[in-house]
């Protein structure tokens, strides 16, 4: 693996559509559940323990064997009851597929079927990581961390939170991201049904409400 390649993949400035997604934070702010830094901390912890674990696991599994992308994609459908979140995940998958295929060869996603379906973001992330020569744990780290950066920066933009404080929260969760990535890599070859499926009811509910708004700043 190349550490620099991992940094390129995990960089928030990678043009892969992430800047327009708040990871559910815009809905949480609007509902009054997130008002300040302490709420953002709780939000990030909950998101990492749920969406972060699932995303990391599926990214690791797709990186270990990109040919499983269809099964993994179906597994994410079954783990994502919210149509709005499925749509957001596929939109980000499509954007990352565009970026990733320009940066590295990603044979698993060259197929017309993958082009047509635009797999869920964690699947694309794993396949792109594989194409970039990274290992499943790298993909899982990028995935787990990636579930946090969107809401953290959205907190800065939506609530005017201190950007240093928001990034301090990210730094504080680094150890948790590492542990999640270790676990995800260890289980990367597991059958899809036994991979983690941690749900976050308020992320589902918030995403569905958000999708009905006429005025919103973020895509999800």
């Amino acid at each position, binding site marked *: 693996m190349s550490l620099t390649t991992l940094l390129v993949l995990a960089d928030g400035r990678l043009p892969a559509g992430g800047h327009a997604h708040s990871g559910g934070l815009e809905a949480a702010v609007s509902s009054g559940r997130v008002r300040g830094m302490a709420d953002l901390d*709780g939000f990030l912890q909950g998101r990492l323990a749920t969406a972060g674990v699932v995303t990391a696991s599926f990214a690791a599994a797709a990186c270990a064997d990109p040919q499983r992308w269809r099964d993994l994609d179906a597994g994410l459908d079954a783990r994502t009851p919210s149509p709005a979140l499925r749509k957001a995940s596929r939109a980000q998958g499509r954007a990352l597929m565009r970026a990733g295929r320009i940066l590295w060869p990603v044979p698993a996603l060259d197929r017309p079927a993958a082009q047509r379906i635009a797999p869920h973001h964690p699947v694309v992330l794993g396949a792109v990581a594989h194409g970039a020569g990274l290992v499943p744990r790298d993909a899982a780290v990028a995935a787990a961390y990636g579930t946090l950066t969107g809401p953290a920066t959205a907190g800065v933009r939506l609530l005017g939170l201190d950007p240093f404080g928001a990034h301090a929260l990210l730094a504080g969760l680094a150890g948790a991201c590492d542990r999640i990535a270790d676990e995800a890599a260890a289980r990367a070859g597991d059958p899809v049904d036994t991979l983690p499926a941690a749900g976050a009811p308020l992320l589902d509910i918030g995403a569905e409400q958000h999708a009905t708004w006429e005025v919103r700043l973020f895509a999800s």
Partner: protein
Amino acid sequence: MRATARVVAEANGRGGTRLTVLRGESPLLLRRTGPDGGAGLTVHLVGGAAGPLRGDDLSLRIEVDPAARLDIRSVAASLALPGPPGRPASRLRIEARVAAGATLRWLPEPLIAAAGCDHRAVTVVEAEAGATVVWRDDLVCGRHGEPCGQVRTDVLVRYAGATLYRHELAVGADAPGWSGPAVLGSSGTGGAYGSVLLAGPPVTATAAPAGPAASPAHGTAVIMDLAGPGRLATAVGADIRAVRAALDPLCERLGEPPEPQRDQAMATA
């Protein structure tokens, strides 16, 4: 305490349902309640002991054969309790198989995660194409004013050979952020969560509007179309009343035999 229970329902050949197996042991005791009034049979879980407690290992197997209709309810909430220290987590495993043309409605009272409990609930539902499944689960995070114990739920619903729904929820001290604004938003004490899954033909036959439901008191709820042939209603609230206000109306008539003049419950929700 180890206990297993099993119920098998089959069509009686006269448009009704009969039970060919109804077997349980304390604390998993099953009782048939009332006759088949045309909408299928009802079986109640009657708690035979306090619990589940740490160390308990409980297993319930449900089989609904073609064209049979079975409701399973419980007479009271189940209360997950700490039990003797040092014992492993209490476990309840529910396996259900629902055949083509059969209907299973699982509509129990809530599970309450008492302070200090450590409980794991695993549900595996395998439904054939053409089966109807209504699956309700409510969770109350601690008794009044006490911190929530640890509960992990793990649900797998397969329909027509494909995984339709896969969901885990963890609450309690070992679950980071569980009471925070991304998961249950209950700020540490109290809080309740409920979900009802509807899988099978009534879903596709009903033009029910999905989307955020009318906000129940102190709670929030949504009805979502799954990627596969199913629909999920989810509710979160400060207490179980908010969750019930959102989900009970949905469950009343879900999965009942279609009557032309009746709207499906989810259509009006």
